[in-house]
């Protein structure tokens, strides 16, 4: 092997080099394939199965897929950032291609022919279309899968793929439509107890008084109360009794150390006044004044956003014979295991963390914390399987939220009205406080000897950034920079949620592009194309304009508007352009959305469309409805009345098209690609309908009325 020209081993194969970590042939006729990625509602299990079946040439139903298990699967960190296919899938395909090649080499040696003369049909080795009597299982005993991956065998070309790009139904959907117990919330075990945690209102708060007797009286059934430091749990075999006690428990505990927060911080502009960690990414700051003349700027804001999964977090744990096993719907079983080991002062080798599906996950929600709750209770009640489920009010109140943000865009225009210098200036709290990634587990904060407050940090630019995500426009401006103000102190815990900073940054950039196009007297589509060289970016804009029958210069009827927006997620994942039609009277109604997306080679076209549709609907919900409300105690919007999301009667007609999904190109993550462009397209459509722009999210009825009065 010529190492000088060898392609670099992907990072995931460097951290998980043993091939048997990815694939095993343990039972005749069966193949075990393992992925560190987990199903969070996005359909990744199905996509992994399609890739494995194609790369190994076995029927999909021969494959036993292991997923997210510290005992059984590779360590792939977190299932996050639209990276499962783009990185996890690519690593899996490389490993499986190499293993298939090893089998063919051995078979060729046995048969006295060249490996190129052989192929695999559903696990059997075939020569010139004829059976050879050899198959994966007859050869497996002589194949050493403990050896390290080299990534020297290329995965199949697109033309040779059968499952990838095909219409494989979701492997998990049947169970869900028949009501099978597929979620953590449905797990049961002999001797299982239910548990609810009486949440420490915030880190550092200490119990002043605690009326256990009142809680027991309310339960109407026997409950066990665990108190360790400032961690309180109500435990019992009867879930109804535990729930009843948990519902009234918060009013029987009083806390010290609760300084009131400022509820006005629910709107984002306060961020600008805060101390921050500042940096400039890209071109040096321009010299001289940046206002007046050819300069123009606009400021956009959004409130904190909740994950608002349709169910609260849950977990199960049991501590038996010195070993802790935790079942969780978290995004990363290995990072969680490390965090649990630190919290419990246990060796990680004595902890197993297993992923089980939960309600849709869009980022760092309460799942890790619920797992920590279950773990703390389990080690304090050895032998009993403990199932924790948060109360809905606690999920809204204590899950990390996506930080409120301010984004100012500033441009100097040239003689043609096009930016020659562009700044995106961003104020935001942190977009990462994952356990082990800059944050603490809630239970750890409540236990005696809590961990120190972690330093403020944001996802690095190498991972697409946090607040800065998509802060750099893809357009061909001569000078581009991001000015990032990372605000260390936020009134509530913040972390990553689908799109991170991209949502408002795309809203700001694309809104400002429309303003610049209008000033130049040009059509928004033509204006964008005039400053955009990337052919794939141009193609999605042109495609979506065609889908929506975009008419340059159309001003629309009164009360109706149409807008376009574009982004390449993280400037490195899928390209996505969206056109939205709205009707505006007292409020905004999104009537139609068209979306064109280039995600490179698409493993599961229908799955990708499903994800893009989901991003469009979530984006519409962000644009029109969502913002976490605060009061002096913290998060005040703790139910669906106070945190409304888009409902069925508010969902637009949606059309999604994939650009060249079966062409042999690296896959680009699509899961988060459509949210930002949707919010921005709706913003542009509303601006056209109103004749004035709303730059603060959400675009509620109140803001529409205010804009009408002002406009």
């Amino acid at each position, binding site marked *: 092997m010529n190492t000088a020209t060898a392609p670099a081993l992907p990072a995931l194969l460097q951290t998980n080099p043993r091939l048997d970590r990815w694939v095993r042939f343990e039972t005749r006729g069966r193949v075990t394939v393992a992925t560190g990625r987990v199903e*969070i*509602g*996005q359909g990744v299990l199905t996509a992994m199965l399609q890739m494995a079946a194609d790369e190994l040439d076995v029927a999909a139903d021969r494959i036993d897929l292991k997923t997210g298990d510290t005992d059984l699967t590779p360590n792939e960190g977190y299932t996050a950032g639209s990276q499962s296919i783009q990185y996890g899938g690519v690593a899996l395909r490389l490993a499986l291609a190499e293993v298939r090649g090893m089998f063919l080499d051995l078979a060729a040696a046995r048969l006295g022919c060249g490996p190129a003369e052989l192929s695999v049909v559903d696990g059997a080795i075939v020569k010139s279309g004829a059976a050879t009597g050899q198959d994966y299982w007859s050869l497996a005993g002589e194949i050493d899968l403990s050896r390290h991956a080299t990534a020297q065998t290329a995965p199949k070309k697109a033309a040779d793929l059968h499952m990838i790009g095909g219409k494989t*139904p*979701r492997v*998990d*959907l*049947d*169970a*869900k*439509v*028949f*009501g*099978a*117990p*597929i*979620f953590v*919330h*449905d797990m049961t075990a002999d001797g299982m107890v239910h548990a609810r945690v009486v949440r420490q209102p915030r880190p550092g708060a200490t119990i002043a008084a605690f009326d256990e007797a009142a809680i027991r009286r309310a339960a*109407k059934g026997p409950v066990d109360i665990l108190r360790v430091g400032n961690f309180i749990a109500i435990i019992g075999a*009867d*879930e*109804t009794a535990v*729930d009843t006690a948990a519902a009234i428990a918060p009013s029987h505990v009083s806390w010290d150390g609760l300084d009131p927060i400022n509820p006005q911080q629910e709107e984002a502009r306060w961020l600008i006044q805060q101390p921050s960690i500042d940096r400039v990414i890209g071109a040096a700051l321009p010299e001289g004044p940046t206002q007046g003349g050819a300069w123009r700027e606009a400021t956009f804001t959004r409130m904190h956003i909740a994950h*608002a*999964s*349709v*169910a*609260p977090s849950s977990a199960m744990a049991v501590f038996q014979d010195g070993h802790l096993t935790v079942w969780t719907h978290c995004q990363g079983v290995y990072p969680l295991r490390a965090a649990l080991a630190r919290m419990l002062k246990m060796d990680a080798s004595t902890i197993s963390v297993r992923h089980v*599906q*939960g*309600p*849709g*996950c*869009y980022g760092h929600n309460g799942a890790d914390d619920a797992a920590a709750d279950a773990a703390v209770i389990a080690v304090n009640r050895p032998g009993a399987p403990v199932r924790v*489920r948060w*109360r*809905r009010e606690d999920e809204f109140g204590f899950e990390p939220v996506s930080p409120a943000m301010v984004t100012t865009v500033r441009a100097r225009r040239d003689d043609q009205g096009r930016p020659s210098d562009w700044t995106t200036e961003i104020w935001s709290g942190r977009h990462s406080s994952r356990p082990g990634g800059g944050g603490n587990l809630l239970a750890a904060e409540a236990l005696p000897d809590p961990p120190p407050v972690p330093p403020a940090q944001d996802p690095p630019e190498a991972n697409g950034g946090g607040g800065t995500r998509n802060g750099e426009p893809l357009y061909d401006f001569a000078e581009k920079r991001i000015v990032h103000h990372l605000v260390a102190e936020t009134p509530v815990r913040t972390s990553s949620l689908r799109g991170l900073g991209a949502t408002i940054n795309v809203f700001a950039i694309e809104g400002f592009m429309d303003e610049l196009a209008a000033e130049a007297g040009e059509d928004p589509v033509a204006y964008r194309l005039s400053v955009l060289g990337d052919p794939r970016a141009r193609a999605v804009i042109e495609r979506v304009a065609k889908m929506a029958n975009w008419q340059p210069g159309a001003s629309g009827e009164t009360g109706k508007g149409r807008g376009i927006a574009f982004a390449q997620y993280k400037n490195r994942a899928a390209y996505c352009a969206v056109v939205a039609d709205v009707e505006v009277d007292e409020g905004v109604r999104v009537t139609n959305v068209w979306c064109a997306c280039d995600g490179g080679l698409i493993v599961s076209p*229908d*799955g990708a469309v*499903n*994800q893009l*549709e*989901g*991003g*469009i*609907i*979530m984006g519409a*919900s962000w644009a029109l409805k969502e913002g976490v409300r605060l009061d002096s105690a913290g998060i005040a919007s703790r*139910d*669906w*009345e106070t945190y409304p*999301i*888009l*409902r*069925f*009667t508010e*969902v637009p*007609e*949606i059309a999604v098209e994939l650009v060249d999904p079966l062409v042999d190109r690296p896959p680009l993550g699509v899961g988060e690609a459509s949210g930002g462009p949707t919010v921005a397209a709706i913003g542009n459509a509303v601006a056209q309908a109103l004749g004035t722009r709303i730059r603060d999210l959400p675009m509620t009825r109140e803001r529409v009325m205010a804009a009408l009065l002002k406009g």
Partner: protein
Amino acid sequence: MPPISLTVNGKPAQITADGDTPLLDVLRNHLGLPGTKFGCGLEQCGCCMVLVDGEPEKSCGKAVSTVAGKAITTIEGLGTPDHPHPLQQAFIDEQAGQCGYCLGGILITAKALLDRNPSPTRRQIAEALDDNLCRCGSHFRIMRAVERAAAQMRGATT
């Protein structure tokens, strides 16, 4: 406490529980029917929807004593993998779901709709499902699946 009698998915059931026990807890914990989900416990999201004498009702806030003698249908009573209800088949055909946590409640609400209106418009489907929340954003294909099921059921009965 005296046992409470009800009919669940066509079979009689005797429940020994406090009458205030939520129907949701009875279904999940006493009768071993986990298809009905806890979503909020506040009667706001629809994950816990069941049919009570044919009408869609949220079971999380409904005391079991109030449904004594009534017929309850849960998602497990709609159909099975071998004998799917046309709605369940249509949801699979349209791949109408992502995380799927909300689907049981949505299927129950959709069944109640089709039972009283075999030819709903898109608008009527949306209005019927408006009390059911879906966060993943599968709404569009869920409505398409309900339309598909309605068409199949109409075809089967004509």
